[in-house]
């Protein structure tokens, strides 16, 4: 849905129009749940992320100052819910990963080409090892990179929206996105070459 339509929906919610919040829930629940699954990896956690986010939306949407920023606001709330889940789990320091560790293989090293998505039929990804390989590669990216990757490349938020949602400068969003993509690329290449853990090849 375009931003203008989202702004109209928000106006209806502010005016307490019947069915407005229900429309909002129908519009965003799949997206928020999917975001939760991709960030947390567990359906139970994704359910909590969805529930926390929608309850917060019910309480606060009417007071949202910038209707154009609905999506950024929503993903910020969902991201915070994901981070709360993380705090309950194992502590992971947010180290920056060096680009030097994410480059190409040395010439002559065997490598398997990453398949061209344009040449893959939908069924190939719907129920295949390749899908699981990609999901695992994403899940292995450290959370502060993964959150940017999921928002940009899987939820298709703009750099500006991600920066607003995560309260980061756009340069940091671009830097994290690039590293996250490189990590997924490296893991895909390693797994498809039959090496398993990409970290073991260095």
């Amino acid at each position, binding site marked *: 849905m375009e931003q203008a339509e989202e702004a109209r929906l928000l106006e209806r919610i502010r005016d307490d129009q019947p069915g407005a919040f229900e429309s909002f829930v129908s519009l965003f629940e799949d997206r928020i749940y999917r975001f939760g699954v991709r960030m947390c990896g567990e*359906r139970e956690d994704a359910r909590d992320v969805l*529930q926390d986010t929608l309850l917060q939306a019910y309480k606060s949407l009417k007071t949202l100052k910038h209707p154009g920023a609905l999506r950024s606001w929503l993903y910020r709330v969902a991201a915070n819910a994901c981070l709360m889940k993380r705090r309950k789990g194992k502590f992971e320091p947010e180290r920056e990963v060096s680009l030097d560790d994410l480059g190409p293989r040395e010439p002559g090293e065997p490598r398997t080409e*990453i398949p061209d*998505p344009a040449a893959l039929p939908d069924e190939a990804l719907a129920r295949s090892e*390749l899908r699981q390989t990609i999901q695992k590669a994403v899940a292995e990216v450290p959370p502060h990179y993964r959150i940017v990757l999921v928002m940009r490349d*899987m939820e298709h938020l703009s750099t500006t929206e991600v920066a607003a949602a995560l309260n980061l400068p756009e340069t940091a969003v671009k830097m994290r996105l690039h590293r996250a993509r490189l990590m997924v690329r490296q893991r895909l290449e390693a797994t498809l070459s039959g090496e398993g853990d990409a970290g073991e090849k260095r």
Partner: protein
Amino acid sequence: MSHTLRPGSPRCRDLFARLSEYLDGELDEALCSEAETHLEDCPPCRDFLESLRRTVGLLDRLPAERVPEEIRREVRESLERLRRHRDD
């Protein structure tokens, strides 16, 4: 120009750090045209860019999971409880 993409090679290194911006069309015109000139001359950079483009394309092609029915129902019931609580 060495035909090995290496972090040690200054032009490869510069481009390597900004390949995602190039893919996303976020480089300004001058840098973009510089990147394209380099890519024409550097097959390893071109191959690496293609593998990154495919990676991003695969992420986009992952099937979208929908909320399972029992979770959808559970969450809507929570919202309804909150609404009733507020109305009381």
